[in-house]
């Protein structure tokens, strides 16, 4: 299996080299390989984030103070990572201290269908609102 993967890796590398030479575009082989290796629960949203960040950058570049707005986008992205990363460590501490996966659960398994629908709606809406908020700050300077 690792051998097949190495062959696939060589194929991706070849595509990247051809794209770099002909179309001046990149197809980073390590990113393709991580897309195969990492769980989908991680990678799909990273892809969405890449498209969201790109959409944000092209949106703000048409407005006033585009440089500032692009920098604010980078800071928003860093903030999202730091917040969740710190929460991950804090959760980890609580889980270790209580030896339970969800020591402070308010809802149970039966609430999952509702929570799923709410989350699927709320998550993209919050992402959209955050980016719109950040993008509207810079032109006011």
């Amino acid at each position, binding site marked *: *299996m690792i051998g097949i993967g190495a062959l696939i890796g060589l194929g991706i590398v070849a595509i990247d080299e051809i794209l770099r030479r002909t179309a001046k575009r990149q197809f980073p082989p390590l990113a393709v*390989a991580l897309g195969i290796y990492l769980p989908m629960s991680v990678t799909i949203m*990273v892809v969405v*984030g890449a498209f969201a960040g790109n959409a944000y950058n092209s949106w703000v570049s048409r407005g006033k103070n585009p440089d500032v707005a692009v920098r604010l986008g980078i800071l928003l992205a860093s*903030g999202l990572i730091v917040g*969740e990363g710190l929460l*991950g460590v804090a959760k*980890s501490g609580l*889980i270790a201290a209580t030896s339970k996966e969800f020591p402070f659960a308010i809802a149970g398994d039966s609430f999952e269908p509702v929570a799923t629908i709410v989350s699927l709606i709320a998550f993209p809406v919050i992402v959209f609102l955050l980016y719109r908020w950040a993008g509207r700050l810079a032109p006011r300077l």
Partner: protein
Amino acid sequence: MASRSALASTPPERRTELTVRGIVLGAIITVVFTAANVYVGLKVGLTFASSIPAAVISMAVLRAFRTSTIWENNIVQTVASAAGTLSSIIFVLPGLVMIGWWTGFPFWYSFAICAVGGILGVMYSVPLRRAMVTGSDLPYPEGIAAAEVLKVGAGMAGTEAQRAAAIAENKLGLTVVIWGAVVGAVYGTLVFVRLLMDEVARFFRLGASASGIDIGLQFALIGVGHLVGLSVGIAMLAGIVLSWGILVPITTSHHAALPDVAAFATGVWRREVRLIGAGAIAVAALWSLGRLAGPVVGGVISSLAAARERREGRGGDLPITERDIPFNTVVLTSAACLLPLGALLAAFLAGTPLGSEVVPLVLGALVYTVVAGLVVAAVCGYMAGLIGSSNSPVSGLAILTVLGAALLLVAVARPGDPNTAKELVAYALFVTAVIINVATISNDNLQDLKTGQLVGATPWRQQVALIFGVIFGALVIPPVLNLLNHSFGFAGSPIHGITNQPLSAPQATLISALANGVIAGDLTGA
């Protein structure tokens, strides 16, 4: 904030640069960002750069002091940049738990690996500064970006109105970082009390085969995607389509289906498709390294030669912006670092079947650390200039380093005895972990020094600041790793966490598998 006239008129030796408050603020940011980076990096396989957010936070916080300067903010940024690079240790160190050598992360071992490796990284890259920062036209994309942020914040752009705008931008920047963090954390808290979901999955059958879709609803992933950019995102999407659209359906069709389709598809993916991914990671990482090999080797040689010429023609006192940590101190500190490292290596071997060969093994590892460390410091430092810290192929270097260590161990110790194979694999990972820190901190140091050059900072103060950053980062990494190991665990590790969601740790899995492959001749393990 220093105005333009103050920048020019302050006597350089007495200006506000390396201050206690700067180091304390840098320490706080380092501890926070390192903890976040270790968690996100183990989950996602990517770490994020901390220089720019640190510079923005620093400028906003230090504005409360009238005496703060652009150089002081640069020092805070330098201390905190260690958080983005030292956390690359998670690409190697969890391997020691995965192979079953450790059950947790002993504090002093883990701290010393990070601290000794990091300090050696600073020391090895000090002599490279003139060659690769001052005397080269390398682009340093990220080093220049950080300098831009610092200059905008210091209002060096001229008019009062522009300065006011810069101050307003800094405040906004801090607000945006904080709100991003709060939203991510609040959503995550609601998930923790089970009012919201952070993962929604559906798996389905396609005739005899199976596949599915599994979406993680986590704001950090959006942030990582934003920072890696569109071409990485598209490439990753291609990887997802390849694995779940082609490889998983094909491999599942070769197995008898299980009644639970989710367990069936993810089980086949974890046991088989993932290994394909690991093989592809190895090739891709080595290729990214290889395509830089030509420019890097040529660049290192020519810039060292140019530096030698300049040094011969030089005389008199150096201006402050050219003063490094003195060369004698660099040599003595590097040598002094080898004492605790040697003691650590000896303690690591004591009580194992390898204990009888402790002298040749320790000496060999020290020589390998010095030689390979100097090489990777130069290579990785040059990469900071060429493509920036975040894009440097550290995993490729880690693969080569562990292969080198493992091959040397096989040649020296001849692991004919299967009882010593595990010890040798552990030893190879241990040495690799130290060298990877040398590489990433050297990369970081040169990038910081480029930023410093652009804002007129004092090199030796930055180098000292980075040592502080390394020590603060090294203090926080072991307890965070222990916590994560205990509560989540790592994929493929014999230690299971309390939850059923092990962290992926892709690079560490691959590197321990490679060490095992060379030493025990078994590539399927880990």
